Protein backbone atom coordinates (compact mmCIF):
# COMPACT_ATOMS: atom_id res chain seq x y z
CA UNK A 1 0.00 0.00 0.00
CA UNK A 2 2.78 2.36 1.00
CA UNK A 3 4.70 1.63 -2.16
CA UNK A 4 1.71 2.17 -4.40
CA UNK A 5 0.99 5.58 -2.95
CA UNK A 6 4.64 6.55 -3.23
CA UNK A 7 4.56 5.45 -6.84
CA UNK A 8 1.43 7.43 -7.69
CA UNK A 9 2.86 10.49 -5.93
CA UNK A 10 6.04 10.21 -7.96
CA UNK A 11 4.03 9.82 -11.16
CA UNK A 12 1.85 12.80 -10.38
CA UNK A 13 4.78 15.04 -9.54
CA UNK A 14 6.91 14.05 -12.49
CA UNK A 15 4.20 13.53 -15.07
CA UNK A 16 5.97 15.89 -17.50
CA UNK A 17 9.28 14.11 -17.11
CA UNK A 18 7.76 10.66 -17.50
CA UNK A 19 5.70 11.65 -20.53
CA UNK A 20 8.74 13.29 -22.13
CA UNK A 21 10.92 10.25 -21.43
CA UNK A 22 8.28 7.89 -22.81
CA UNK A 23 7.89 9.89 -26.04
CA UNK A 24 11.63 10.25 -26.54
CA UNK A 25 12.15 6.54 -25.83
CA UNK A 26 9.44 5.30 -28.18
CA UNK A 27 10.33 7.69 -30.98
CA UNK A 28 14.00 6.70 -30.76
CA UNK A 29 13.07 3.02 -30.66
CA UNK A 30 10.79 3.40 -33.69
CA UNK A 31 13.53 5.20 -35.61
CA UNK A 32 16.31 2.79 -34.62
CA UNK A 33 14.25 -0.30 -35.40
CA UNK A 34 12.61 1.14 -38.53
CA UNK A 35 13.72 -1.84 -40.68
CA UNK A 36 12.09 -4.25 -38.20
CA UNK A 37 8.83 -2.37 -37.60
CA UNK A 38 8.21 -1.11 -41.13
CA UNK A 39 5.74 -3.34 -42.98
CA UNK A 40 7.26 -2.36 -46.35
CA UNK A 41 10.61 -0.98 -47.56
CA UNK A 42 10.44 2.86 -47.66
CA UNK A 43 10.95 3.07 -51.43
CA UNK A 44 8.73 0.13 -52.44
CA UNK A 45 6.24 1.30 -55.04
CA UNK A 46 2.74 -0.18 -55.03
CA UNK A 47 1.57 1.28 -58.29
CA UNK A 48 -1.81 -0.39 -58.07
CA UNK A 49 -2.41 1.31 -54.69
CA UNK A 50 -1.73 4.99 -55.44
CA UNK A 51 -3.11 7.58 -52.96
CA UNK A 52 -5.09 5.04 -50.96
CA UNK A 53 -6.57 6.19 -47.64
CA UNK A 54 -5.48 4.40 -44.44
CA UNK A 55 -6.52 0.75 -44.46
CA UNK A 56 -5.55 -2.52 -42.80
CA UNK A 57 -3.06 -3.14 -45.60
CA UNK A 58 -1.48 0.35 -45.52
CA UNK A 59 -1.99 1.64 -41.97
CA UNK A 60 -1.58 5.31 -42.76
CA UNK A 61 -2.39 5.17 -46.46
CA UNK A 62 -0.11 5.52 -49.48
CA UNK A 63 1.40 8.50 -51.31
CA UNK A 64 1.21 9.40 -54.97
CA UNK A 65 3.77 6.76 -55.93
CA UNK A 66 1.98 4.14 -53.90
CA UNK A 67 4.61 4.07 -51.16
CA UNK A 68 3.50 3.10 -47.64
CA UNK A 69 3.23 6.26 -45.51
CA UNK A 70 3.74 4.47 -42.19
CA UNK A 71 7.00 2.83 -43.34
CA UNK A 72 8.26 6.11 -44.76
CA UNK A 73 7.44 7.88 -41.50
CA UNK A 74 9.52 5.37 -39.54
CA UNK A 75 12.49 5.99 -41.84
CA UNK A 76 11.77 9.74 -41.80
CA UNK A 77 12.10 9.61 -38.01
CA UNK A 78 15.67 8.34 -38.40
CA UNK A 79 16.50 11.36 -40.53
CA UNK A 80 14.90 13.88 -38.16
CA UNK A 81 16.50 12.44 -35.03
CA UNK A 82 19.91 12.06 -36.66
CA UNK A 83 19.86 15.64 -37.94
CA UNK A 84 18.65 16.84 -34.54
CA UNK A 85 21.38 15.03 -32.61
CA UNK A 86 24.30 15.94 -34.85
CA UNK A 87 23.22 19.58 -35.22
CA UNK A 88 22.88 19.89 -31.44
CA UNK A 89 26.20 18.12 -30.96
CA UNK A 90 27.85 20.79 -33.11
CA UNK A 91 26.07 23.74 -31.52
CA UNK A 92 26.63 22.48 -27.96
CA UNK A 93 30.34 21.86 -28.60
CA UNK A 94 30.86 25.34 -30.03
CA UNK A 95 28.70 27.01 -27.39
CA UNK A 96 30.31 25.18 -24.47
CA UNK A 97 33.86 25.84 -25.68
CA UNK A 98 33.24 29.55 -26.29
CA UNK A 99 31.24 29.93 -23.07
CA UNK A 100 34.00 28.30 -20.98
CA UNK A 101 36.75 30.41 -22.54
CA UNK A 102 34.92 33.70 -22.31
CA UNK A 103 33.71 33.11 -18.76
CA UNK A 104 37.09 31.97 -17.50
CA UNK A 105 39.51 34.33 -19.24
CA UNK A 106 37.11 37.33 -19.24
CA UNK A 107 38.44 40.72 -20.43
CA UNK A 108 38.88 41.02 -24.20
CA UNK A 109 38.18 37.34 -24.89
CA UNK A 110 34.85 37.63 -23.14
CA UNK A 111 34.10 40.91 -24.89
CA UNK A 112 34.84 39.42 -28.32
CA UNK A 113 32.80 36.27 -27.76
CA UNK A 114 29.80 38.10 -26.36
CA UNK A 115 29.85 40.57 -29.26
CA UNK A 116 29.90 37.63 -31.67
CA UNK A 117 26.91 36.20 -29.81
CA UNK A 118 25.07 39.52 -30.14
CA UNK A 119 25.77 39.68 -33.86
CA UNK A 120 24.61 36.11 -34.43
CA UNK A 121 21.41 36.78 -32.45
CA UNK A 122 20.62 39.75 -34.71
CA UNK A 123 20.88 37.59 -37.82
CA UNK A 124 17.61 36.70 -39.42
CA UNK A 125 19.10 33.20 -39.12
CA UNK A 126 16.43 31.30 -41.04
CA UNK A 127 17.16 33.57 -44.04
CA UNK A 128 20.85 32.78 -43.82
CA UNK A 129 20.28 29.04 -43.33
CA UNK A 130 17.97 29.02 -46.33
CA UNK A 131 20.46 30.87 -48.55
CA UNK A 132 23.44 28.76 -47.54
CA UNK A 133 21.60 25.44 -47.89
CA UNK A 134 20.21 26.40 -51.28
CA UNK A 135 23.71 27.29 -52.48
CA UNK A 136 25.49 24.26 -51.04
CA UNK A 137 23.18 21.67 -52.58
CA UNK A 138 20.76 20.61 -49.87
CA UNK A 139 21.86 17.39 -48.23
CA UNK A 140 21.80 16.07 -44.68
CA UNK A 141 25.41 16.86 -43.80
CA UNK A 142 25.12 20.48 -44.90
CA UNK A 143 21.84 20.91 -43.03
CA UNK A 144 23.28 19.54 -39.79
CA UNK A 145 26.37 21.73 -40.03
CA UNK A 146 24.48 24.91 -40.88
CA UNK A 147 21.87 24.41 -38.14
CA UNK A 148 24.68 23.69 -35.68
CA UNK A 149 26.66 26.78 -36.69
CA UNK A 150 23.67 29.10 -36.27
CA UNK A 151 22.32 27.88 -32.92
CA UNK A 152 25.21 27.87 -30.42
CA UNK A 153 24.55 31.31 -28.89
CA UNK A 154 22.19 30.28 -26.11
CA UNK A 155 24.52 27.56 -24.85
CA UNK A 156 27.49 29.96 -24.95
CA UNK A 157 25.63 32.47 -22.77
CA UNK A 158 24.51 29.85 -20.25
CA UNK A 159 27.93 28.24 -19.93
CA UNK A 160 29.62 31.62 -19.65
CA UNK A 161 27.31 32.64 -16.79
CA UNK A 162 27.94 29.34 -15.05
CA UNK A 163 31.73 29.63 -15.53
CA UNK A 164 31.79 33.20 -14.24
CA UNK A 165 30.38 32.06 -10.92
CA UNK A 166 32.29 28.76 -10.75
CA UNK A 167 35.70 30.37 -11.29
CA UNK A 168 35.33 32.29 -8.02
CA UNK A 169 34.66 29.16 -5.99
CA UNK A 170 37.14 27.75 -3.46
CA UNK A 171 37.85 24.51 -5.29
CA UNK A 172 38.96 26.43 -8.35
CA UNK A 173 41.18 28.66 -6.20
CA UNK A 174 42.62 25.53 -4.62
CA UNK A 175 43.37 24.01 -8.00
CA UNK A 176 44.98 27.24 -9.17
CA UNK A 177 47.16 27.43 -6.05
CA UNK A 178 48.19 23.84 -6.58
CA UNK A 179 49.59 24.93 -9.92
CA UNK A 180 47.04 23.29 -12.19
CA UNK A 181 47.06 24.81 -15.66
CA UNK A 182 44.13 26.94 -16.83
CA UNK A 183 43.04 24.46 -19.47
CA UNK A 184 43.05 21.60 -16.96
CA UNK A 185 40.99 23.68 -14.55
CA UNK A 186 38.52 24.48 -17.31
CA UNK A 187 38.13 20.91 -18.51
CA UNK A 188 38.37 18.95 -15.27
CA UNK A 189 37.01 21.32 -12.63
CA UNK A 190 34.67 23.83 -14.24
CA UNK A 191 33.18 21.91 -17.16
CA UNK A 192 31.79 19.00 -15.10
CA UNK A 193 30.05 21.48 -12.79
CA UNK A 194 28.58 23.43 -15.70
CA UNK A 195 27.05 20.41 -17.40
CA UNK A 196 23.50 20.81 -16.09
CA UNK A 197 22.56 23.85 -18.20
CA UNK A 198 24.33 22.26 -21.18
CA UNK A 199 22.23 19.12 -20.85
CA UNK A 200 19.03 21.15 -20.59
CA UNK A 201 19.72 23.30 -23.61
CA UNK A 202 20.89 20.30 -25.62
CA UNK A 203 17.57 18.55 -24.99
CA UNK A 204 15.60 21.63 -25.97
CA UNK A 205 17.99 22.14 -28.90
CA UNK A 206 17.12 18.76 -30.41
CA UNK A 207 13.49 19.87 -30.55
CA UNK A 208 14.46 23.14 -32.22
CA UNK A 209 16.74 21.47 -34.76
CA UNK A 210 14.02 18.99 -35.73
CA UNK A 211 11.65 21.88 -36.36
CA UNK A 212 14.20 23.74 -38.51
CA UNK A 213 15.07 20.63 -40.50
CA UNK A 214 11.43 19.84 -41.20
CA UNK A 215 10.74 23.45 -42.22
CA UNK A 216 13.67 23.34 -44.65
CA UNK A 217 12.58 19.99 -46.05
CA UNK A 218 9.04 21.29 -46.39
CA UNK A 219 10.36 24.17 -48.52
CA UNK A 220 12.21 21.64 -50.66
CA UNK A 221 15.59 22.81 -49.36
CA UNK A 222 16.17 20.11 -46.80
CA UNK A 223 16.45 16.36 -47.08
CA UNK A 224 15.84 15.54 -50.73
CA UNK A 225 13.36 12.95 -52.02
CA UNK A 226 13.32 10.00 -52.42
CA UNK A 227 14.90 9.90 -48.92
CA UNK A 228 11.94 10.31 -46.59
CA UNK A 229 11.83 13.01 -43.97
CA UNK A 230 8.73 14.27 -42.17
CA UNK A 231 9.18 17.69 -43.74
CA UNK A 232 9.44 16.55 -47.35
CA UNK A 233 6.57 14.08 -46.88
CA UNK A 234 4.42 17.06 -45.91
CA UNK A 235 5.70 18.97 -48.93
CA UNK A 236 4.64 16.10 -51.20
CA UNK A 237 1.35 15.87 -49.31
CA UNK A 238 0.55 19.55 -49.85
CA UNK A 239 0.53 19.05 -53.62
CA UNK A 240 -2.36 16.59 -53.31
CA UNK A 241 -3.99 18.02 -50.18
CA UNK A 242 -7.44 18.13 -51.78
CA UNK A 243 -7.59 14.48 -52.80
CA UNK A 244 -5.34 12.86 -50.16
CA UNK A 245 -5.56 14.85 -46.93
CA UNK A 246 -4.00 12.06 -44.80
CA UNK A 247 -0.64 12.77 -46.43
CA UNK A 248 -0.71 16.25 -44.87
CA UNK A 249 -1.72 15.03 -41.42
CA UNK A 250 0.33 12.11 -40.06
CA UNK A 251 3.93 13.26 -40.70
CA UNK A 252 3.09 16.56 -39.00
CA UNK A 253 1.68 14.67 -36.04
CA UNK A 254 4.99 12.81 -35.78
CA UNK A 255 6.91 16.11 -35.71
CA UNK A 256 4.53 17.52 -33.09
CA UNK A 257 4.84 14.51 -30.78
CA UNK A 258 8.63 14.23 -31.08
CA UNK A 259 9.24 17.93 -30.50
CA UNK A 260 6.76 17.85 -27.61
CA UNK A 261 8.65 14.94 -26.07
CA UNK A 262 12.03 16.70 -26.15
CA UNK A 263 10.51 19.95 -24.87
CA UNK A 264 8.80 18.17 -21.96
CA UNK A 265 12.01 16.35 -21.11
CA UNK A 266 14.09 19.54 -21.32
CA UNK A 267 11.70 21.61 -19.24
CA UNK A 268 11.38 19.02 -16.51
CA UNK A 269 15.16 18.55 -16.42
CA UNK A 270 15.42 22.31 -15.95
CA UNK A 271 12.98 22.17 -13.06
CA UNK A 272 14.99 19.42 -11.41
CA UNK A 273 18.57 20.45 -12.12
CA UNK A 274 18.41 24.21 -12.06
CA UNK A 275 16.71 25.47 -8.90
CA UNK A 276 17.16 29.11 -9.92
CA UNK A 277 14.84 28.69 -12.85
CA UNK A 278 12.15 26.99 -10.80
CA UNK A 279 8.92 28.92 -10.73
Amino acid at each position, binding site marked *: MMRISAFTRFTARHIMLLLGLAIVFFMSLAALCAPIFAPYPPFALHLEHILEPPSSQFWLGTDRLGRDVFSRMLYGGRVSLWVGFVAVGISVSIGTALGLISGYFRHWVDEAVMRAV*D*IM*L*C*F*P*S*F*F*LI*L*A*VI*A*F*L*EPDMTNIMIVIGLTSWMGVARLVRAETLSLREREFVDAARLAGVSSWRILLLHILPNALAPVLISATLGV*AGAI*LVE*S*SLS*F*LGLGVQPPTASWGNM*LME*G*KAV*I*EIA*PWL*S*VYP*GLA*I*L*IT*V*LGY*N*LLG*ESLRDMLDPRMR*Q
Partner: protein
Amino acid sequence: MTSTASLPRRRTTGIAARTAKKTLWLLLTLLGITLISFFVIHLAPGSPTDTETTLNPLAGEAARKQLETLYGLDRPLYVQYFDWVVRLLHFDFGNSMSADARPVLTKIAERLPLTIGVNVISLLLVLLISIPLGIITACKQNSLLDRLTTILVFLGFAMPSFWLALLLMLFFGIEHQWFPVSGLTSLNFSELDFFGKCADIAAHLALPVTVYTIGGLAGMSRYMRACMLEVLRHDYILTARAKGLPEHAVILRHALRNALLPVITLLGLSVPGLIGGSVIIESIFALPGLGQLFYAAVMARDYTMIMGNLVLGAVLTLAGNLLADFCYGFADPRIHSAGGRT
Protein backbone atom coordinates in the same frame (compact mmCIF):
# COMPACT_ATOMS: atom_id res chain seq x y z
CA MET B 1 19.23 76.27 -7.54
CA THR B 2 22.35 74.88 -9.16
CA SER B 3 21.60 71.37 -8.08
CA THR B 4 18.08 71.42 -9.51
CA ALA B 5 19.37 72.88 -12.77
CA SER B 6 22.25 70.48 -13.19
CA LEU B 7 20.34 67.34 -12.40
CA PRO B 8 18.20 67.18 -15.56
CA ARG B 9 21.16 68.19 -17.70
CA ARG B 10 23.32 65.43 -16.33
CA ARG B 11 20.52 63.02 -16.94
CA THR B 12 20.17 64.11 -20.58
CA THR B 13 23.90 63.86 -21.26
CA GLY B 14 23.84 60.40 -19.72
CA ILE B 15 21.07 59.33 -22.03
CA ALA B 16 22.78 61.02 -24.99
CA ALA B 17 26.05 59.23 -24.29
CA ARG B 18 24.25 55.94 -23.89
CA THR B 19 22.35 56.45 -27.13
CA ALA B 20 25.52 57.39 -29.02
CA LYS B 21 27.33 54.33 -27.71
CA LYS B 22 24.36 52.16 -28.54
CA THR B 23 24.07 53.57 -32.07
CA LEU B 24 27.76 53.04 -32.73
CA TRP B 25 27.46 49.47 -31.56
CA LEU B 26 24.41 48.91 -33.74
CA LEU B 27 26.27 50.17 -36.80
CA LEU B 28 29.20 47.88 -36.02
CA THR B 29 26.82 44.92 -35.65
CA LEU B 30 25.22 45.76 -38.95
CA LEU B 31 28.63 45.93 -40.60
CA GLY B 32 29.52 42.53 -39.09
CA ILE B 33 26.30 41.02 -40.40
CA THR B 34 26.85 42.35 -43.92
CA LEU B 35 30.46 41.16 -43.88
CA ILE B 36 29.55 37.60 -42.89
CA SER B 37 26.56 37.37 -45.23
CA PHE B 38 28.39 38.85 -48.20
CA PHE B 39 31.31 36.49 -48.02
CA VAL B 40 29.26 33.41 -47.20
CA ILE B 41 26.90 34.05 -50.08
CA HIS B 42 29.55 34.97 -52.65
CA LEU B 43 31.92 32.14 -51.74
CA ALA B 44 29.24 29.47 -51.86
CA PRO B 45 29.08 27.50 -55.12
CA GLY B 46 26.84 28.70 -57.93
CA SER B 47 26.39 32.14 -59.40
CA PRO B 48 23.55 34.43 -60.51
CA THR B 49 24.63 33.84 -64.08
CA ASP B 50 23.80 30.11 -63.86
CA THR B 51 20.16 30.32 -64.92
CA GLU B 52 21.03 32.37 -67.98
CA THR B 53 24.18 30.50 -69.08
CA THR B 54 24.97 27.03 -67.73
CA LEU B 55 21.34 25.98 -67.77
CA ASN B 56 20.78 27.49 -71.20
CA PRO B 57 22.27 25.36 -74.01
CA LEU B 58 22.39 28.33 -76.42
CA ALA B 59 24.64 30.43 -74.17
CA GLY B 60 28.37 29.71 -74.13
CA GLU B 61 31.34 30.67 -71.99
CA ALA B 62 31.52 34.06 -73.72
CA ALA B 63 28.00 34.96 -72.67
CA ARG B 64 28.83 34.01 -69.08
CA LYS B 65 31.93 36.25 -69.12
CA GLN B 66 29.87 39.09 -70.51
CA LEU B 67 27.21 38.72 -67.80
CA GLU B 68 29.83 38.51 -65.09
CA THR B 69 31.37 41.75 -66.29
CA LEU B 70 27.91 43.32 -66.41
CA TYR B 71 27.21 42.34 -62.80
CA GLY B 72 30.77 43.20 -61.72
CA LEU B 73 31.33 39.62 -60.53
CA ASP B 74 34.70 39.35 -62.29
CA ARG B 75 36.36 41.68 -59.79
CA PRO B 76 38.11 40.49 -56.60
CA LEU B 77 35.64 39.78 -53.78
CA TYR B 78 36.92 42.47 -51.40
CA VAL B 79 36.53 45.10 -54.14
CA GLN B 80 32.97 43.93 -54.71
CA TYR B 81 32.23 44.12 -50.99
CA PHE B 82 33.75 47.57 -50.61
CA ASP B 83 31.84 48.81 -53.62
CA TRP B 84 28.62 47.32 -52.26
CA VAL B 85 29.08 48.96 -48.83
CA VAL B 86 29.83 52.36 -50.37
CA ARG B 87 26.68 52.16 -52.45
CA LEU B 88 24.74 50.97 -49.40
CA LEU B 89 25.74 54.19 -47.63
CA HIS B 90 23.80 56.05 -50.35
CA PHE B 91 20.86 53.66 -49.80
CA ASP B 92 21.62 52.11 -53.16
CA PHE B 93 21.09 48.34 -52.92
CA GLY B 94 21.89 47.84 -56.61
CA ASN B 95 19.73 46.20 -59.24
CA SER B 96 18.33 42.73 -59.00
CA MET B 97 20.52 40.19 -60.84
CA SER B 98 17.49 38.37 -62.22
CA ALA B 99 15.56 38.79 -65.47
CA ASP B 100 13.43 41.42 -63.72
CA ALA B 101 16.42 43.72 -63.20
CA ARG B 102 14.70 46.57 -61.37
CA PRO B 103 16.35 48.15 -58.29
CA VAL B 104 16.35 45.85 -55.25
CA LEU B 105 14.87 48.58 -53.08
CA THR B 106 11.86 49.03 -55.41
CA LYS B 107 11.15 45.32 -55.46
CA ILE B 108 11.42 45.08 -51.68
CA ALA B 109 9.22 48.15 -51.19
CA GLU B 110 6.44 46.46 -53.18
CA ARG B 111 6.50 43.41 -50.93
CA LEU B 112 7.21 44.91 -47.53
CA PRO B 113 3.74 46.34 -46.62
CA LEU B 114 2.07 42.92 -46.82
CA THR B 115 4.66 41.13 -44.68
CA ILE B 116 4.84 43.91 -42.09
CA GLY B 117 1.05 44.32 -42.07
CA VAL B 118 0.35 40.65 -41.48
CA ASN B 119 3.02 40.46 -38.77
CA VAL B 120 1.81 43.57 -36.95
CA ILE B 121 -1.82 42.42 -36.98
CA SER B 122 -0.81 39.02 -35.62
CA LEU B 123 1.46 40.56 -32.98
CA LEU B 124 -1.38 42.78 -31.77
CA LEU B 125 -3.67 39.75 -31.59
CA VAL B 126 -1.00 37.82 -29.70
CA LEU B 127 -0.62 40.62 -27.16
CA LEU B 128 -4.38 41.06 -26.86
CA ILE B 129 -4.83 37.40 -25.97
CA SER B 130 -1.62 36.54 -24.14
CA ILE B 131 -1.44 39.48 -21.72
CA PRO B 132 -4.81 38.82 -20.07
CA LEU B 133 -4.17 35.08 -20.24
CA GLY B 134 -0.76 35.51 -18.61
CA ILE B 135 -2.24 37.65 -15.83
CA ILE B 136 -5.08 35.26 -15.09
CA THR B 137 -2.93 32.13 -15.12
CA ALA B 138 -0.35 33.79 -12.87
CA CYS B 139 -2.96 34.98 -10.37
CA LYS B 140 -4.79 31.66 -10.34
CA GLN B 141 -1.72 29.42 -10.36
CA ASN B 142 -2.50 25.70 -10.64
CA SER B 143 -6.14 26.36 -11.42
CA LEU B 144 -7.83 24.36 -14.15
CA LEU B 145 -7.35 27.22 -16.63
CA ASP B 146 -3.67 27.44 -15.73
CA ARG B 147 -3.13 23.73 -16.29
CA LEU B 148 -5.07 23.79 -19.54
CA THR B 149 -3.01 26.76 -20.75
CA THR B 150 0.22 24.97 -19.85
CA ILE B 151 -0.79 22.00 -21.98
CA LEU B 152 -1.76 24.27 -24.87
CA VAL B 153 1.52 26.17 -24.53
CA PHE B 154 3.54 22.96 -24.85
CA LEU B 155 1.49 21.94 -27.89
CA GLY B 156 1.97 25.42 -29.36
CA PHE B 157 5.75 25.23 -28.94
CA ALA B 158 5.91 21.85 -30.64
CA MET B 159 3.54 22.67 -33.51
CA PRO B 160 5.37 23.22 -36.81
CA SER B 161 3.84 26.36 -38.32
CA PHE B 162 3.62 24.85 -41.80
CA TRP B 163 1.71 21.85 -40.48
CA LEU B 164 -0.74 24.09 -38.65
CA ALA B 165 -1.17 25.97 -41.92
CA LEU B 166 -1.89 22.72 -43.76
CA LEU B 167 -4.44 21.64 -41.15
CA LEU B 168 -6.21 25.02 -41.27
CA MET B 169 -6.27 24.87 -45.08
CA LEU B 170 -7.67 21.38 -44.89
CA PHE B 171 -10.43 22.25 -42.42
CA PHE B 172 -11.41 25.84 -43.24
CA GLY B 173 -10.42 25.94 -46.88
CA ILE B 174 -11.14 22.55 -48.37
CA GLU B 175 -13.55 20.79 -46.00
CA HIS B 176 -15.81 23.80 -45.33
CA GLN B 177 -14.62 26.33 -47.93
CA TRP B 178 -15.04 29.22 -45.46
CA PHE B 179 -11.80 30.92 -46.40
CA PRO B 180 -9.70 30.99 -49.58
CA VAL B 181 -6.47 29.02 -49.19
CA SER B 182 -4.03 30.89 -51.40
CA GLY B 183 -3.12 34.26 -52.83
CA LEU B 184 -4.02 37.74 -51.63
CA THR B 185 -7.03 38.50 -53.86
CA SER B 186 -9.77 36.64 -55.70
CA LEU B 187 -9.99 36.45 -59.48
CA ASN B 188 -12.82 39.01 -59.61
CA PHE B 189 -10.94 41.45 -57.36
CA SER B 190 -10.88 44.32 -59.85
CA GLU B 191 -14.67 44.25 -60.21
CA LEU B 192 -15.29 44.66 -56.47
CA ASP B 193 -16.06 48.00 -54.82
CA PHE B 194 -13.84 49.36 -52.05
CA PHE B 195 -15.49 47.47 -49.19
CA GLY B 196 -15.65 44.33 -51.28
CA LYS B 197 -11.89 44.62 -51.88
CA CYS B 198 -11.20 45.05 -48.16
CA ALA B 199 -13.37 42.06 -47.31
CA ASP B 200 -11.68 39.99 -50.00
CA ILE B 201 -8.18 40.74 -48.70
CA ALA B 202 -9.30 40.15 -45.11
CA ALA B 203 -10.71 36.74 -46.06
CA HIS B 204 -7.46 35.81 -47.79
CA LEU B 205 -5.39 36.91 -44.79
CA ALA B 206 -7.55 35.17 -42.17
CA LEU B 207 -5.72 31.84 -42.25
CA PRO B 208 -2.16 33.24 -42.46
CA VAL B 209 -2.85 35.62 -39.57
CA THR B 210 -4.26 32.72 -37.54
CA VAL B 211 -1.09 30.69 -38.15
CA TYR B 212 1.17 33.57 -37.11
CA THR B 213 -0.97 34.32 -34.05
CA ILE B 214 -1.08 30.75 -32.76
CA GLY B 215 2.65 30.48 -33.40
CA GLY B 216 3.38 33.52 -31.23
CA LEU B 217 0.77 32.84 -28.58
CA ALA B 218 2.48 30.00 -26.75
CA GLY B 219 5.72 31.81 -26.04
CA MET B 220 4.14 35.13 -25.18
CA SER B 221 1.51 33.88 -22.74
CA ARG B 222 4.06 31.63 -21.03
CA TYR B 223 6.47 34.54 -20.72
CA MET B 224 3.78 36.91 -19.49
CA ARG B 225 2.81 34.40 -16.79
CA ALA B 226 6.42 33.94 -15.68
CA CYS B 227 7.03 37.71 -15.50
CA MET B 228 3.81 38.23 -13.57
CA LEU B 229 4.71 35.50 -11.05
CA GLU B 230 8.14 37.07 -10.63
CA VAL B 231 6.68 40.52 -9.98
CA LEU B 232 4.00 39.28 -7.58
CA ARG B 233 6.76 37.94 -5.35
CA HIS B 234 8.16 41.42 -4.67
CA ASP B 235 7.76 43.41 -1.46
CA TYR B 236 5.97 46.35 -3.06
CA ILE B 237 3.10 44.04 -3.98
CA LEU B 238 2.90 43.00 -0.33
CA THR B 239 2.93 46.70 0.59
CA ALA B 240 0.17 47.49 -1.86
CA ARG B 241 -1.93 44.65 -0.47
CA ALA B 242 -1.11 45.63 3.12
CA LYS B 243 -2.34 49.16 2.65
CA GLY B 244 -5.70 47.70 1.70
CA LEU B 245 -5.78 48.25 -2.06
CA PRO B 246 -8.36 46.14 -3.85
CA GLU B 247 -6.84 43.14 -5.62
CA HIS B 248 -7.57 44.42 -9.14
CA ALA B 249 -5.70 47.65 -8.38
CA VAL B 250 -2.71 45.69 -7.05
CA ILE B 251 -2.60 43.52 -10.14
CA LEU B 252 -3.41 46.03 -12.84
CA ARG B 253 -1.71 49.15 -11.50
CA HIS B 254 1.28 47.85 -9.54
CA ALA B 255 2.14 44.45 -10.93
CA LEU B 256 1.19 44.68 -14.59
CA ARG B 257 3.35 47.66 -15.45
CA ASN B 258 6.46 45.96 -14.13
CA ALA B 259 5.59 42.62 -15.61
CA LEU B 260 5.20 44.16 -19.06
CA LEU B 261 8.83 45.33 -19.16
CA PRO B 262 10.45 42.00 -20.09
CA VAL B 263 7.60 41.34 -22.51
CA ILE B 264 8.58 44.48 -24.45
CA THR B 265 12.12 43.13 -24.77
CA LEU B 266 10.83 39.79 -25.98
CA LEU B 267 8.85 41.59 -28.68
CA GLY B 268 12.02 43.23 -29.93
CA LEU B 269 13.89 39.94 -29.92
CA SER B 270 11.15 38.09 -31.80
CA VAL B 271 11.66 40.10 -35.02
CA PRO B 272 14.18 37.73 -36.69
CA GLY B 273 11.91 34.76 -36.03
CA LEU B 274 8.95 36.55 -37.58
CA ILE B 275 10.93 37.45 -40.69
CA GLY B 276 12.18 33.87 -41.05
CA GLY B 277 8.70 32.47 -40.47
CA SER B 278 7.29 34.62 -43.26
CA VAL B 279 9.26 32.59 -45.83
CA ILE B 280 7.38 29.43 -44.88
CA ILE B 281 3.93 30.87 -44.34
CA GLU B 282 4.00 33.07 -47.45
CA SER B 283 5.11 30.14 -49.56
CA ILE B 284 2.26 27.95 -48.27
CA PHE B 285 -0.45 30.55 -48.77
CA ALA B 286 1.12 31.97 -51.95
CA LEU B 287 1.20 35.48 -50.47
CA PRO B 288 3.29 37.97 -52.48
CA GLY B 289 5.32 39.18 -49.50
CA LEU B 290 8.96 39.59 -48.55
CA GLY B 291 9.44 35.92 -47.66
CA GLN B 292 8.37 34.79 -51.09
CA LEU B 293 10.64 37.37 -52.73
CA PHE B 294 13.56 36.10 -50.68
CA TYR B 295 12.83 32.48 -51.51
CA ALA B 296 12.78 33.28 -55.24
CA ALA B 297 16.01 35.29 -54.90
CA VAL B 298 17.75 32.41 -53.14
CA MET B 299 16.66 29.98 -55.82
CA ALA B 300 17.96 32.26 -58.60
CA ARG B 301 21.15 33.11 -56.64
CA ASP B 302 20.24 36.76 -57.05
CA TYR B 303 23.12 38.12 -54.90
CA THR B 304 22.03 41.76 -54.68
CA MET B 305 18.49 40.75 -53.81
CA ILE B 306 19.59 38.29 -51.10
CA MET B 307 21.93 40.86 -49.58
CA GLY B 308 19.20 43.48 -49.70
CA ASN B 309 16.83 41.18 -47.84
CA LEU B 310 19.43 40.18 -45.26
CA VAL B 311 20.35 43.81 -44.59
CA LEU B 312 16.69 44.72 -44.28
CA GLY B 313 16.08 41.80 -41.93
CA ALA B 314 19.07 42.81 -39.81
CA VAL B 315 17.98 46.47 -39.75
CA LEU B 316 14.46 45.48 -38.68
CA THR B 317 15.91 43.25 -35.97
CA LEU B 318 18.23 45.94 -34.69
CA ALA B 319 15.40 48.47 -34.83
CA GLY B 320 13.28 46.05 -32.80
CA ASN B 321 16.05 45.76 -30.21
CA LEU B 322 16.55 49.51 -30.09
CA LEU B 323 12.84 50.15 -29.76
CA ALA B 324 12.62 47.56 -26.99
CA ASP B 325 15.54 49.25 -25.24
CA PHE B 326 13.93 52.63 -25.60
CA CYS B 327 10.53 51.49 -24.33
CA TYR B 328 12.26 49.72 -21.47
CA GLY B 329 14.05 52.90 -20.45
CA PHE B 330 10.86 54.87 -20.86
CA ALA B 331 8.79 52.55 -18.71
CA ASP B 332 11.39 51.81 -16.03
CA PRO B 333 12.69 54.84 -14.10
CA ARG B 334 15.54 52.78 -12.59
CA ILE B 335 17.23 52.65 -16.00
CA HIS B 336 17.21 56.45 -16.28
CA SER B 337 19.03 56.84 -13.00
CA ALA B 338 21.53 54.16 -13.93
CA GLY B 339 22.14 55.90 -17.24
CA GLY B 340 22.64 59.23 -15.44
CA ARG B 341 25.32 57.82 -13.20
CA THR B 342 27.57 56.51 -15.96
